[in-house]
């Protein structure tokens, strides 16, 4: 029985700005234009590709891989050191991240904990494929069987004979002195889990038989690229077997695996991982509100609001297979008891459980921008912030860059103690009489002000300091009256479409998108404008593109194009 089936069997048994500074915006506008120019059936543009990547595995990839290999009951409370968010994504930062001594400390500690559990009396019976001849002594044959099987899944390729021999030897040496076979095995497994071959996702090249002297990503590297994108986890046995047979190099074999993965339950964790990164949800690790001003916003509510947006996204995109753009207008969500109280919705939900909920058509809430997660994340601890919300929308959801304020920013009008500003709109309007400030604030504030009927904790309000709130405004020329109108404008915004495609592609290839790939993104967008922006369609468009696996110098068409360039 394979390890995956043994785990599944065991689990069942256990039962348990400034226009000039909108640089990225400009680039995305170029992509949008490219998309318009790309007609039906247009060929995929050539791309130069990039060097193979060496990515540090993320915390969630680690957790999912351990769970998928050894089963969900292996406790794993690892906390990775933060990596630098690059080009909007932690996944891109991971391709430059370094394992510092402090970071390694945590990884080694987690490795020991996982290894000890895998071989303990509860798990050894089904996670170790053989019985040692004598539990009190080394058994190289059994250790070899276990380590080669587990090593394949963790290194994402077969172990070399040298690697395997060293591990078997370590297991044997550690079993001496009365420690026994399983204890020895736990040290060998620890060495797998702390090795760079496991923690750094390294892509390798091989000779391309279709091009003399050409190179391409090898099958195992392709498998890893696919699996970490779609499942947020290392490849399973079936995908690795396909890689070993060379099937990922041909269209039929690739489609067989991708379609299998797109319809697998692990897709939900893959989608969650992408949106956790894309929506910058690590901000919730430390999000707190002033308990006097917002007594309803407790630590539990903060945690549940993050969970709510992820459940909404996965329900919408994975379970219902609906269009990404509709996330900005949908009235469906998933509610917990604590959140129901904050939203003031009449719903009885058992503690620690979740239930589907749909806001009424006349309700001011529509789309993820009006969920507590977004509203509280982009606000101050004690009040709302149209500027933060506007900046969040521009930078995160539209991939545009909003410049920092100048060091000598002048708040003298806002500071005037005689001025009476009841609402944020009045305050910001006054601040923006300074043309230096107005340049950037006009990029952020009209959008953020549309959400002003929700306070800093995301609770609905009609007034601020007794004055009625005006939530009307415009997004890039599209006018709206309220937050729901902003959601509709986002739904139709070309920048929103360009952004999700660009981020998903960068997330998949694990590196920043190069300027030379603008035409490619435009091509993706043109395809999706026809099919719709369902998650599976976006993923298919990307992973079936030639560009997805192209590495520097490996795209013959790109080479030809470069040679012909003046």
């Amino acid at each position, binding site marked *: 029985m394979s390890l995956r089936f043994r785990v599944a069997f065991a689990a069942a048994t256990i039962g348990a700005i400034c226009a000039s500074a909108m640089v990225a915006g400009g680039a995305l506008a170029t992509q949008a234009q490219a998309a318009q120019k790309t007609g039906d059936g247009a060929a995929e543009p050539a791309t130069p590709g990039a*060097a193979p990547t*060496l990515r540090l595995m993320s915390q969630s990839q680690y957790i999912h891989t351990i769970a998928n290999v050894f089963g969900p009951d292996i406790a794993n409370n690892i*906390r990775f*050191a*933060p*990596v*630098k968010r690059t080009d909007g994504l932690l996944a891109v*930062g991971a391709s*430059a*991240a*370094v*394992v*510092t*001594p*402090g*970071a*390694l*400390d*945590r990884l*080694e500690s987690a490795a*020991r904990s996982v290894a000890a559990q895998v071989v303990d009396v509860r798990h050894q019976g089904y996670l170790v494929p053989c019985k040692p001849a004598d539990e009190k002594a080394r058994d190289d044959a059994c250790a070899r069987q276990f380590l080669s099987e587990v090593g394949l899944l963790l290194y994402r390729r077969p172990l070399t004979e040298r*690697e395997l021999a*060293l*591990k078997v030897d*370590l297991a044997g*040496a*550690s079993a*001496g*002195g*009365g420690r026994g076979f399983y204890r020895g095995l736990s*040290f060998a497994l*620890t*060495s797998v889990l*702390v*090795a*760079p*071959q496991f923690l*750094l996702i390294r892509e390798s*090249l091989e000779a391309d038989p279709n091009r003399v002297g050409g190179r391409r990503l090898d099958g195992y590297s392709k498998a890893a690229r696919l699996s970490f994108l779609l499942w947020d986890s290392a490849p399973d046995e079936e995908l690795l077997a396909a890689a070993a047979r060379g099937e990922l190099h041909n269209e039929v074999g690739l489609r067989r695996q991708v379609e299998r993965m797109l319809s697998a339950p692990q897709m939900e964790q893959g989608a969650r991982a992408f949106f956790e990164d894309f929506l910058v949800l690590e901000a919730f*690790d*430390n999000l*707190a509100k*002033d308990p*006097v*001003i917002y007594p309803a916003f407790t*630590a539990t509510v903060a945690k549940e609001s993050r969970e709510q947006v992820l459940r909404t996204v996965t329900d919408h995109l994975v379970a219902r297979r609906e269009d990404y753009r509709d996330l900005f207008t949908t009235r469906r969500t998933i509610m917990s008891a604590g959140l129901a109280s904050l939203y003031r919705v009449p719903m009885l939900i058992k503690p620690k459980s979740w239930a589907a909920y749909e806001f009424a058509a006349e309700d001011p809430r529509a789309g993820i921008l009006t969920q507590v997660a977004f509203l509280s994340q982009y606000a*101050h*601890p*004690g*009040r709302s912030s149209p500027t933060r919300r506007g900046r969040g929308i521009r930078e995160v959801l539209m991939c545009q860059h909003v410049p*920092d*304020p100048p*060091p*000598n*920013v002048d*708040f003298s009008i*806002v*500071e*005037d*103690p005689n001025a009476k500003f009841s609402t944020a709109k009045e305050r910001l309007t006054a601040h923006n009489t300074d043309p230096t400030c107005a340049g950037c604030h006009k990029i952020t504030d009209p959008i953020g002000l549309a959400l002003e009927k929700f306070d800093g904790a995301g609770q609905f309000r009609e007034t601020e300091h007794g004055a009625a709130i005006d939530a009307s405004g415009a997004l890039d020329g599209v006018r709206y009256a309220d937050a729901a109108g902003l959601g509709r404008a986002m739904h139709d915004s070309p920048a929103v479409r360009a952004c999700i495609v660009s981020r998903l592609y960068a997330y998949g290839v694990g590196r920043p998108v190069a300027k030379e790939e603008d035409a490619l993104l435009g091509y993706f967008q043109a395809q999706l404008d026809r099919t719709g922006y369902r998650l599976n369609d976006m993923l298919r468009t990307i992973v079936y593109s030639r560009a997805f696996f192209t590495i520097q110098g490996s795209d013959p068409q790109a080479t030809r194009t470069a040679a012909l360039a003046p």
Partner: protein
Amino acid sequence: MLIRTTRNPTRRRLLKGLLRGGAVTVSLPFLDMFLNENGSALAAGQPLPARFGTWFWGLGVDKEIFLPTKYGADYEMRAQMKPLEKVRKHINLFSNYNVFTDGKSNLCHYTGWVALRCGSVPASRGGLPGESLDVTISDAVGAGSRFRSLTLAGTGVARDSYSFRSADAVNPPETSAVEFYQKMFGPEFQDPNSPTFTPDETTMLRKSVLSGVLEETKGLERDLGASDRQRLDQYFTSIRELEGRLELQLQKPPPAPNCVIPKTHGKEAGIGVDVEVVDVRHKAMTDLLMMALACNQTKVFNMVYSDSAASLVRQGSERTHHILTHEEPVDPDKGIQPNASWFVDRAIENWAYFVEAMANTREGDGSLLDHSLVYAHTDCQFAKVHSLESIPMFTAGSLNGRVRTGLHIDGKEQAATALGYTCQRLMGVPTSSWGTQSMQATREISEMLV
């Protein structure tokens, strides 16, 4: 002789004892005998360890009530410095030192601290053009203690660290007193004053695991580009550092007569950055750090009280410290923003707490502080305009009598890197300069040298 041998068991000897089953228990007498007669040095003649630390707070000060008008030893303590009165004799204040940007943008709440930590002005937000000085110092002196350095964030935020080898290699901070306690004094802690010493067989096997990883990965860097090779090298360096720590764990730790293992992790703070919560967290971590130092767990440490764009909040106030620095009117009579100033007062109180904690922790014939040098600074002088002129900096401690204290030192508008350079020289870093362009420092601050 017996003791020396026992303190440095060979790998072969331990393996013989450990891997064949019988763990070794070694009896040792109690340890004041290791100190010389006046307790100021080890009997073998080595000086007590010289320690280096950093302490950071965000959003500057209010110069109208902070900066003394006099320099030298008899400077006046103005209102915002008052909490430091009780530790005055242990600290130096440095003012009139500047950060020059050489035409680069002043990135609000970023340029200042980056320049003071790594000696160079960043070209863009997120860029860190060099390694922080604590890392350089740790490379020079950090060996021989259990942790080469410790980094702590009183904010409880995992990204609040100003200790880095590069922008992609920021040292992650401890964010909770509970976890920090476990890391320091949990099962892996070895009491340096225990009369017996039993090398732990698991530690030896853990070390073998790491050695095996290094052996197995030989040649792994082949076919990698230069930057990825460096990253892999850093991975190996981290493994070797952990290996070195485990090696130390297999030896009888040197004596630390003032090491008293804390019974608990102290008061547990909630989440968030309310000033009261940060105060609890910072003090709990400080107390634990003092004992970690007294127990020789590290020679280099970093403490962050608040982040550089300090979003600390005060219960019931709509505005964070940062917002107040921009939105609160300046009181025309006092020249300060009263509510924003309240937050600075809390930061200075916590800095005073930190210094006092070091001064009150006995070691040898003096205190931890007597054997340490702590470098404290913020990100700007007046947060309202993000000014980089005269960013206040402190040192605390006399570093085994090598640093004069009790002074207010005038930088005469020179580059603020002069202090970081002096700290590195004092800690034995063999460098003739620190910093780049206008921020390059080549001379020590002579006024603070004995």
